[in-house]
């Protein structure tokens, strides 16, 4: 089967290789490929020569930065899937213009997250058969593996359906509902993987799944604002989608960020108040750089910037706020990871905290992850016409 000859029902090529990518897409593709290629090459070289000693993790601090980074991408993916569902599941017409773009972003952030996860695991290939056959229903990580695999499959099917113009069919709706449910389960289970750990009191919380889903959604809003704003500069904005970019998305950004801030404040104050052993990690947070990047750069400044209508509608302010939030939430993921592990268990240490700073190889996973996302986003924008959307007149 020649995939290049395949066409959508409305006659467009399935893979539009004939068209020329616009400048920004080409830049993203080539730049992303170079950045990801170089970083991944170095990381793989380090892993092959030094093994996991290339990371600064230890038996006192088992989960390192790669876990935080893949958490960032996986939760962003689930959030993006939710945004795409606002249209395809809940019929919110305003979100038609970003639905397809969000599904593609959701797929590629998942791919980036899986790549980072594979680089963190001791035996990533063993996972492929050992997890499915184990049927360890008690393990949140087992469910995560199952849910995220189904999530990726459904996202790909959903993207294919939209790409071939099936916006309104019953099967698209069914797949969309399934995809939405699974992405909630997947990100919620990732929250459970941390929230269920009573022996790590700084993580232990029944609210963790909700917090993960919420912050994932917020990350997705920031992603959408950032990528759509970038694309607007290149291709302009049709009148019928201007309302989404100028009004709905920025307002959604502000409201969701407000919800994140309130939830996070609840976490912080509970942690500082609690006497339970292990909760002192929250006090130590106050001296952590990551914590302050999260709170001030990630939450407070974007909240102030997006707080007024005039500023919200300014594209530059939108981009700046989205960028700041992304930096903040990235730091937040790393900070959360450290907080749960820095109070020592019955090993080596007794007094003091377990110290951890990611190694150079671990930091390289950031450009590796983002390189993959930018490369695939540029490719998607070129080949799949991500600006494509159902005309509002046809919407039900």
């Amino acid at each position: 089967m020649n995939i290049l000859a395949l066409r959508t029902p409305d006659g467009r090529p399935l893979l539009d290789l004939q068209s020329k990518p616009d400048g920004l897409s080409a830049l993203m593709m080539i730049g992303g490929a170079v950045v990801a290629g170089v970083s991944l090459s170095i990381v793989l070289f380090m892993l092959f020569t030094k093994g996991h000693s290339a990371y600064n993790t230890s038996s006192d601090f088992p989960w390192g930065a790669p876990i935080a980074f893949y958490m960032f991408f996986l939760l962003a993916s689930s959030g993006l899937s939710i945004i795409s569902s606002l249209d395809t599941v809940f019929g919110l017409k305003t979100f038609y213009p970003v639905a397809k773009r969000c599904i593609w972003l959701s797929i590629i952030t998942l791919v980036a997250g899986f790549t980072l996860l594979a680089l963190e695991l001791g035996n990533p290939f063993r996972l492929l058969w050992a997890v499915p056959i184990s049927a360890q229903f008690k393990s949140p990580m087992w469910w995560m593996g199952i849910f995220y695999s189904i999530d990726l499959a459904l996202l790909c099917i959903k993207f294919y359906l939209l790409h071939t113009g099936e916006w309104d069919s019953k099967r698209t709706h069914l797949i969309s509902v399934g995809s939405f449910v699974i992405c909630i389960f997947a990100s919620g289970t990732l929250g459970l993987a941390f929230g269920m750990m009573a022996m790590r009191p700084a993580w232990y919380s029944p609210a963790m799944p909700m917090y993960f889903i919420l912050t994932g959604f917020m990350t997705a809003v920031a992603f959408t604002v950032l990528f759509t704003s970038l694309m607007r500069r290149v291709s302009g904005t049709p009148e019928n989608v201007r309302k989404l970019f100028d009004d709905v998305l920025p307002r959604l950004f502000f409201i969701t960020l407000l919800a994140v801030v309130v939830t996070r404040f609840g976490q912080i104050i509970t942690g500082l108040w609690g006497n339970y052993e292990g909760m002192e990690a929250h006090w130590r947070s106050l001296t952590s750089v990551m914590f302050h990047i999260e709170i001030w750069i990630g939450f407070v400044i974007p909240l102030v910037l997006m707080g007024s209508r005039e500023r919200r509608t300014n594209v530059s302010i939108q981009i700046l706020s989205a960028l700041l939030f992304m930096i903040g939430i990235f730091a937040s993921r790393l900070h959360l990871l450290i907080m749960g592990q820095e109070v020592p268990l019955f090993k080596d240490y007794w007094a003091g905290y377990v110290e951890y700073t990611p190694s150079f190889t671990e930091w390289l996973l950031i450009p590796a992850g983002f390189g993959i996302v930018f490369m695939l986003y540029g490719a998607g924008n070129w080949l799949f016409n991500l600006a494509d959307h159902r005309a509002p007149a046809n919407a039900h």
Partner: protein
Amino acid sequence: MARWGMVIDLEKCTGCQACTTACSMENSRLPGENWQDVLFYNEGEYPSGKLTWLPRPCMHCENASCVDVCPTKATYKDKDGFVLINWDLCIGCKYCMIACPYGVRFYAEEKQKTLPDVREVWPSKDGKVWDPPWAMPSHLNDPKHGVGIQPKNVVSKCTFCYHRVSKAPQGTPDLDPNDPKTRDFTPACVVTCAPTARYFGDLDNPKSYVRKLIAEKRGVRLQDHTGNRPQVYYLAGEAASIPETRSTRTKKV
């Protein structure tokens, strides 16, 4: 079926760390990879402060959280009460290390704490972490029960010397290192303990001495509130104590 367990009498323990050394030699552990460790800490404040210690093997919990979180069932609870790792199934996700409240698990693929890196001094030719000259005979290697030297990229932990204990005749109530009939089946840390602070036996056997000790000397379990129900009990008596906390928090004024 037995439910093997250990009793450690903290009044008798001198903190000599012979148990740690015996375990390291028996199981060919890397420096710092102390399946059995003795942790030293300060308790109290001047003028009543004191330096004290806690011997800490794997607790081989009844409700082991490490077993529940393992996504491949590589960590499992054996019918005789051992918590073991099947190295052929371990994917090295380290979730068990997160979920163990006691910090008894190790991942050898990390920067070594001592130099030279002995993994490079005695490298393994068959994919294991290392291969020191004193390693146990290769026919005793049992990766399905986490015995021997582990392959790279898997988690390791104390096995209660499964390779010894599992060979004990069925129905044996206690494994006493002073009894020639049971000495060879007794865990290395128990055999080597000079002040005989360690006792090993079947917690389910009404005739076992460990049961008697726990009942009569009020055996307690570490961090019992976690619900993991360790099969290692401590006797604090009047002269010793189990740590009230591992916390680093300073007292609120």
